[in-house]
C-alpha cells in the first residue's frame, strides 16, 4: 500500500470594511442592535434596486493587485438563486463567469523554501444576514433573523489546488490574511466572521497526476481549526481509500468540540443556483487608468516590508518575518523606531516582552497599553543607566498593567539604578567578606564564581545595582584583597 498525498484548495471570504454596504447606503459596521443597519434595499423590499458602491470596487482592485491578479477590464454581476431566510431576495448578487480578477498568486514559506500558490479568481458579492436560533436549528421553536450583515460587501478569493499539507494551507491562509490586512480593506477577524475559510481537499496516491474526489469543509473558525480539520479529513479519506472504499463528493462541517468533520444535511444535493446576469446592474467597466491610480495608492505589502527590514535595519530574517506578519505589529515597531532608532533592540522588546504580555492578556497590538513612545522612553532609561535591563522588564510590566509612563513607574517604585560607587563598594566588601570560598574559586580561574557574587550584590540591592559598575568594583575588590 503506497503513500497518499493531499491536494488542498481554499475558498476565502473577506468582509470589506467600507462605510456603507455594497448596494445601499446602510452602515456596513460589525455588530449593532439587530436590524438597525438596514433599509428597503438591503431588506429586498418589493421594487428596490441595487446601486454599486464604488469603494467596494476600489477595495477589491486593491486586493487583486496585492495578490498579483489580472484585473478584468469588463466584468458583470450575476444572481445566485437559492432560498434561505437570511437572504431577503432569495438570491445573492455575486459574480459568476466574469469575475473582477483572475490568475493571481502569493508566496508562502515552506520547509523546502518559498512556494507559489495560485489564485484562481477574486470576485465581489453581498453577504447574507444572520439567523438566531434558540438552541440548535433543528430544535428551535422559531428563528429570528438579523439583517444587519445583509449586503455587507464580501470578497471571495479562490485558490488553485496547490497546497499539499494542512500546514501549507495554514501558511497560505495566514499569508493571505496578512496581505489583505496590509491593504487595510478588511479586518480579517475570523472570530467576528470577517474572514471565513472553506477548504476543498482530496487525496491521491503519491506521484499520481489525477485529482481524487474532493470534499468541502465548512465551519472552520480559526487557523488551528483549519489544520485540525484538514488533518482529520485527510486521514478519513486515506482510511476509506485503503479499505477499498470511495470518497463521496460532499460538503462537510468541522465539529470543533468532537474534532471531526461531519456530512452536512445534503439538502442542497448538487444545488442548481440558476445563475444569470443581474439585470438591475450594468456591467462593470474598469479602466486601466483607474487601476493604475489604485495601484499607486497601495500600501507596502508584507514581503516588501520584510525585505526592507533586513536590508535597511539589518534585522535577522526571522525578526523581519515576525514583525511583518501583521501590519499592526510592523506599524508598532516602526513607530518605536522613529523615537528610538536601534532596530535590533526594539525588535527584541516587541517580539519578547510585548508579545508575551499581549498573548497572556489576549490583547491586540493596536490596543497595547504600552504605547510606542513609552517603550522608547524605557529603552532610553536603560541607555542612560537609570534602570538596568532586568529592572526595565519590571517597569515594562507595570506600564503594561497601568498605562503609566516609565519615568513615573521608576520614580514611584524607587526602581532607580544604584550607580553610587561608594554605596556599592560597601555592599561589595560585605559580599566578598561573606563568601571567602567563592572568592577563592574565582581566583583559581572559575569565572562562574563571579556571577554568583554579582547575584549576591543584586539580591541585597533588590536588583537595582548597575551591573557594569558592580562587575568592575567586584573585580577590583577581589584583586585589592589579594594585595
Amino acid at each position, binding site marked *: 500500500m503506497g503513500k497518499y498525498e493531499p491536494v488542498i484548495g481554499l475558498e476565502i471570504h473577506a468582509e470589506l470594511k467600507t462605510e456603507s454596504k455594497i448596494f445601499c447606503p446602510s452602515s456596513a459596521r460589525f455588530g449593532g442592535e439587530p436590524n438597525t443597519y438596514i433599509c428597503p434595499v438591503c431588506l429586498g423590499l418589493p421594487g428596490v434596486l441595487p446601486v454599486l458602491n464604488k469603494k467596494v470596487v476600489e477595495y477589491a482592485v486593491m486586493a487583486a493587485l496585492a495578490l498579483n491578479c489580472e484585473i478584468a477590464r469588463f466584468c458583470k454581476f450575476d444572481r445566485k438563486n437559492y432560498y434561505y*431566510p437570511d437572504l431577503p431576495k432569495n438570491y445573492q448578487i455575486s459574480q459568476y463567469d466574469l469575475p473582477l480578477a483572475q490568475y493571481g498568486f502569493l508566496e508562502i514559506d515552506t520547509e523546502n523554501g518559498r512556494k507559489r500558490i495560485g489564485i484562481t479568481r477574486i470576485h465581489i458579492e453581498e453577504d447574507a444576514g444572520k439567523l438566531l436560533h434558540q438552541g440548535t436549528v433543528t430544535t428551535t421553536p422559531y428563528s429570528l433573523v438579523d439583517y444587519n450583515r445583509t449586503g455587507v460587501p464580501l470578497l471571495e478569493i479562490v485558490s488553485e489546488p496547490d497546497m499539499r499539507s494542512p500546514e501549507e494551507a495554514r501558511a497560505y491562509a495566514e499569508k493571505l490574511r496578512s496581505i489583505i490586512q496590509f491593504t487595510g480593506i478588511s479586518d480579517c477577524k475570523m472570530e467576528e466572521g470577517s474572514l471565513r475559510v472553506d477548504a476543498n481537499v482530496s487525496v491521491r496516491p503519491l506521484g499520481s497526476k489525477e485529482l481524487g474526489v474532493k470534499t468541502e469543509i465548512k465551519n472552520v473558525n480559526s487557523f488551528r481549526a483549519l489544520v485540525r480539520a484538514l488533518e482529520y479529513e485527510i486521514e478519513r479519506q486515506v482510511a476509506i481509500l485503503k479499505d477499498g472504499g470511495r470518497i463521496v463528493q460532499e460538503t462537510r462541517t468541522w465539529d470543533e468540540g468532537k474534532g471531526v468533520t461531519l456530512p452536512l444535511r445534503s439538502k442542497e444535493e448538487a444545488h442548481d443556483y*440558476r445563475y444569470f446576469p443581474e439585470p438591475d*446592474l450594468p456591467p462593470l467597466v474598469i479602466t486601466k487608468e483607474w487601476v493604475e491610480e489604485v495601484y499607486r495608492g497601495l500600501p507596502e505589502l508584507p514581503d516588501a516590508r520584510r525585505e526592507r527590514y533586513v536590508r535597511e535595519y539589518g534585522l535577522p530574517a526571522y525578526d523581519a518575518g515576525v514583525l511583518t506578519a501583521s501590519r499592526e505589529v510592523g506599524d508598532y515597531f516602526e513607530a518605536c523606531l522613529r523615537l528610538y532608532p536601534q532596530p535590533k533592540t526594539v525588535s527584541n522588546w516587541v517580539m519578547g516582552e510585548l508579545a508575551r504580555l499581549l498573548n497572556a492578556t489576549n490583547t491586540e497590538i493596536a490596543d497595547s497599553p504600552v504605547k510606542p513612545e513609552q517603550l522608547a522612553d524605557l529603552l532610553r532609561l536603560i541607555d542612560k543607566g537609570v534602570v538596568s535591563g532586568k529592572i526595565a522588564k519590571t517597569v515594562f510590566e507595570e506600564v503594561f498593567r497601568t498605562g503609566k509612563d516609565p519615568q513615573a513607574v521608576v520614580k514611584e517604585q524607587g526602581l532607580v539604578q544604584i550607580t553610587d560607587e561608594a554605596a556599592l563598594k560597601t555592599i561589595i566588601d560585605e559580599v566578598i567578606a561573606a563568601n571567602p570560598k567563592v572568592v577563592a574559586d574565582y581566583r583559581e580561574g572559575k569565572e562562574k564564581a563571579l556571577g554568583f557574587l554579582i547575584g549576591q550584590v543584586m539580591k541585597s540591592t533588590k536588583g537595582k545595582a548597575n551591573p557594569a559598575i558592580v562587575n568592575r568594583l567586584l573585580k577590583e575588590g577581589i584583586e585589592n584583597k589579594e594585595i
Partner: protein
Amino acid sequence: MDLCRMPAHELGRLLRERKVSALELTDAVFSRIDAVEDKVKAYLLLLREEARSQARAVDAALAAKEELPPLAGVPLAVKDNLCMTGVETTCASKILKGFVPPYDATVIERLKEQRVVFTGKTNMDEFAMGSSTENSGFYPTANPWDLKRVPGGSSGGSAAAVAAGEAVTAIGSDTGGSIRLPAAFCGVVGLKPTYGRVSRYGLVAFASSLDQIGPITRDVRDCALLLNAIAGHDPRDSTSAPQEVPDYTEFLVPEIKGFRIGIPKEYVAEGIAPAVRDVLAEAVHLLTRMGAVVEETSLPHVSYSLPAYYLIAPAEASSNLARYDGVRYGLRVEGEDVVTMYKKTRSRGFGAEVKRRIMLGTYALSAGYYDAYYLKALKVRTLIRRDFDAAFERFDMLLSPTSPTPPFRIGEKVDDPLAMYLTDICTLAVSLAGVPGLSIPAGFAGHLPVGIQLIGPPFTEGKLLRVAYAFEQEAGITAKRPVL
C-alpha cells in the same frame, strides 16, 4: 362643462385661471367613480380623503398665487405595482395583501413634486403578468366601451380609469405591452418610453430588463406633460439613462411633412383582424396626406419575439418573485418548518399565470437548459435589436397595429394561455429592443376602439409625440368617450 372628460392640460388651465378648484375637480372625479366603479372595477384602492386634502393644499397654493407645476391638482391614478409610502401595494396579488411600503417610488416622488392628486391604486394582472387584467388576484376590470370585454392588460385598471373618467391621467407599467395594449383597448394614449428613460426604483419588478413605467392619458399633450414629470436619470436606478430630458410639449407641432414612416410587413401579416387592418390603412392614408412618406419594411426576426420574450421575462420573474416567501411581509401560511411554510405561502399566494411563468423561468435557467433556452433567447433579442437598428437607418419611425384584434370578451382566452400571449405580438419586440412605443387611438371596430403603435429609435419620444399629436389633431378620435 364635464370635468371628467377633459384632458389634464385643459383642466390645468382652468385651475390656474381659478375657473374651477382642485377640490371641485377631485370631487367630480370621485362622484364619477361612485357612479361607474361598480361596473368598471378599475381600482383596487381609493385614496378619497388623501386626494381631497391634496386638492385643498393645491387650492391654498393657488390662492396664495404660488407658481405651480403644470399637473398640480390633476387627479391621477397609479397602477398598484408602484410603491407609495403608507399606501398598500399588492400588485393585485394575494401574496402581497397588506404590504405597505415605507418608501416612495421615484416616479411617485416626482409626481408628488408635481402636486398631482392621487386618486388610488388601479387593478392589474397579478405582478403585471397578463394582457387582460383577468389575472388580477382580486377581480377583473371591465372595458368602459363594452363591459363584457377586457380592458387589456396588464395596466387595465389605469387605462379603464382614464377612459371611464375615473381619473384624468394614470401611470402604468409596460414589460411586453402592458401600457400600450390597454391604452389601445380603452381608446386612450399610452407610452412605453425607451428602457432607462424613467426610473424603475419603486416599481415592483416583473422582468427587470424590460419593465418601464409610462403615462396613460386622454390625449397626446397630456402624455408629453406626464412624461416631462416622470422622465430622467435617477441615481437609485443604475439602469436609468443619463440623457437630458427635453420639454416634450415643445415637440407638439402638427407638421410632419417628409417624415419617413416604415410599416413592418410582419405586423400586417396573418393574424391581424380585418377591422384592425382597416384602421391601420386609414391611418396610413391620413399620414400620407399630411406629407409623411409611408413605406413597407421588414423586421426579419420579430416572429421570434414571442418565444424569446416568454423565456427572458419569466426567467427574470422567477428570480424577482423569489422574495415573496412569507418571511418578512405579505401573506404567510404557517408550516411545520420553513420550507413547508415557503411552499404553502407561495402555493396559496400566487395565481395560476404567475405560477406558470415562475415554472417556465425556473426551467429556462436550470443547469442543462440555460444555453438552449435563456442564452438562445438573449441572442434572439440581440438580433431583434439589430432589426430595429437597421430599420431606423431608413425610417424615422415605424408604425404597426398595437394589438392584432379589438378588445376580446372577458373569459374568451383565459383557458388558452398561448392565445392570450398572442395578444401582445405587436408590442413584445419593442420591449425586447428597449425602444419607445406609443399607442394612440386611431379608429373603431364597430363600437370598440382600435389603437396604432408608433415605434422610434431610443430616446425619440419627442418625435413620436409630434407625429401622434399631428395625427390626433387631424383624425379627431379622442373626442369620443365611452358611454357608461
